[in-house]
């Protein structure tokens, strides 16, 4: 086995082991509020053990890792989506109404008259704009 594949394998093992930590972290938060009969210190001690377990037996936790990765991606996607919807509501819509108030509308929605526009040329090939 060559060194890069060892590094990759270690990284993968670490990622799988780390994916076991969120439930323990949640347990620790719950224990701080007194919702579960476990002390936060116990959770803290268990964390590296869980990480090590995941790294030692990655095959056993692969399906869990896949599940939680999908969940993270889903949650991340939703958060970004909501953030951008917020930007749209708080920035784009007010700006659009402001522009319309000033008599500007970026797209031509009129129904009459020619729609031909004289070409401004293709521009420089070097520019992406």
């Amino acid at each position, binding site marked *: 086995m060559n060194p890069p594949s060892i590094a990759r394998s270690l990284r993968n093992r670490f990622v799988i082991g780390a994916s076991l930590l969120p439930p323990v972290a949640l347990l620790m938060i719950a224990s701080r509020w007194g919702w579960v009969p476990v002390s936060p210190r116990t959770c803290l001690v268990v964390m590296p053990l869980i990480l090590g377990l995941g790294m030692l037996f990655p095959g056993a936790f692969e399906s869990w890792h896949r599940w939680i990765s999908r969940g993270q991606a889903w949650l991340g996607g939703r958060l*970004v989506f909501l953030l*951008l919807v917020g930007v749209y509501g708080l920035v*784009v819509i007010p700006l659009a109404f402001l522009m319309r108030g000033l008599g500007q509308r970026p797209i031509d929605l009129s129904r009459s008259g*020619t729609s031909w*526009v004289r070409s401004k040329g293709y521009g420089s*090939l070097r520019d*992406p704009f």
Partner: protein
Amino acid sequence: MHYVLGISGLYHDSAAALLGDGRILAAVQEERLSRRKNDARFPERAIQSCLDQAGITAGDLAAVAFYEKPILKFSRTLEVFLGWAPRGGRAFARAIPDWLGGRLDLRGRIRSALPHLPADCPILFTTHHEAHAASAFFPSPFAEAAILTVDGVGEWATTTIARGSGATIEPLEEIQFPHSLGLLYSAFTAYCGFRVNSGEYKLMGLAPYGEPRWVETLLEDLVSLHEDGSFRLNLEYLNPLAEEYLTNERFHQRFGGLPRRPEDRLEQRHLDLARSIQWVTEQAMLGLARRAQKQTGARHLCLAGGVALNCVANGRLLREGPFEDLWIQPAAGDAGAALGAALAAWHGPLERGGMAAPRTPPTSDAMGGSFLGPEETPESVESSLKRWDAVWERLTPEVLQERVVQALIEGKVVGWVQGRMEFGPRALGHRSILGDPRSPDMQSRMNLKVKFRESFRPFAPAVLAERAAEYFGLQGESPYMLLVAPVADSQRVPLAQEAEGLDRLKQVRSTLPAVTHVDGSARVQTVDPERNPQFYALLKHFEAKTGCPVLINTSFNVRGEPVVASTEDAYRCFINSQIDVLAVGPCFLERDRQLHTTLPRGFEAIPD
């Protein structure tokens, strides 16, 4: 040799094309290699295939050209959101991550995909419609021509008129978003239950079954066609930012109901809508062509852009338009823009960053029959077949033709994979399914049992170029299957009574029933020995045996699958469909002798 790589993609139909000293060496669509129809991902496989075909690496490239100006397009996207607000929040939240995830930094993306690209190799950007215009004019046989590009939308332009002369293209005028013929056609495509950017040709095929009952409504409410060839859409009926349907509630009320879902039955209303939007599109295209002729004074027209794949409109342009002749880029959609970008960079003036190469118009055209993709050696074909435990015979070209023609005469369906793969949406006799067009039940058999697709869709005839006029009312040639022409009167069979709707499909209308559409038209491919020698020889052989110089030629794939590229793709498709015989390279395979009855599918099926 100076190599220029052209790239298109990230929206639909990604592709790459390679020029060597201005000659088109290779062009490939990503979907053929990735096996995902209309694949929009960055075309890494297509780029590698082009480089492999030329036997070079990215380190040999003199320039790379991308078919759009990404920042200009991004700014248009933002402005459209500003113009469309308060609607469009959902589309905004979906579009922005895509842009920030790599569409803006295309230089970085291209360099990371081509790590051996020299640091001083320029990465150039044409505009979307410049790439289309270049793909239409530079490979054309014309020294001077008007150029018309029509599609959904590029940066801002949806339609452009330009003048091509020698090695220069001068843009003259354009129609800008949201007024778009492509967008309008796509709106009806989705409304009738077909997929945007892929189902438009199904709508076109459906049109002859209907009556133009909705034309008046369309022209009154939805689109206005002006005397000067321009047009405007009424955006009160459309939602150009929608992801699935481009139509809104008001549209649905005006045109008789909710959009059809793909699994729903086709009603007479859908047939009539298809006919109506097709008629409006043809009128609009004729108006645009007249304007282009007036603005340029040219005798010839070059066409590109997705709307230029509407071969019914193209046929009318040729018959009724103001131009003596027209040439249409065979890959007229966005895939062909990869080639256009490379050509625009090659011929572009120095002050714009181009390579200012002169141009000599070719005598026929510079597309080489559009056979610009990879091909396999006989050894590679046999090795693939061996891997699949196939049973085959290796034959000489003459014996192979003899056996294939015999199978066709017996009414069998033949898969035909020979030479380099086609570039563009049409199979032109290198990755084709062939059949005898004289058989009355061949159309429904091939549609339902071989291609597993809708029964209403017509098949195209491939005809020997020198005998095309006997069978079709075609002016000139149609080597790329981009013109629809009427079947000649001498071949027509009179009908006692015309049926209605989809029942018209069952009526025999000509001596070539399998390729005659219900309106008596056919999407013709003329085959000549210069561009397509092997397919020409096969047709000649069929003609010698039967007297008929025509074959059914349809793309070698099944519903939802890209056209086959490799022997492996062809063998899987052969086994999983009801194709009787497969001729791939020098190898001849018969269904009855194969060990497999099914194989795992090798493509990602895309729904309609």
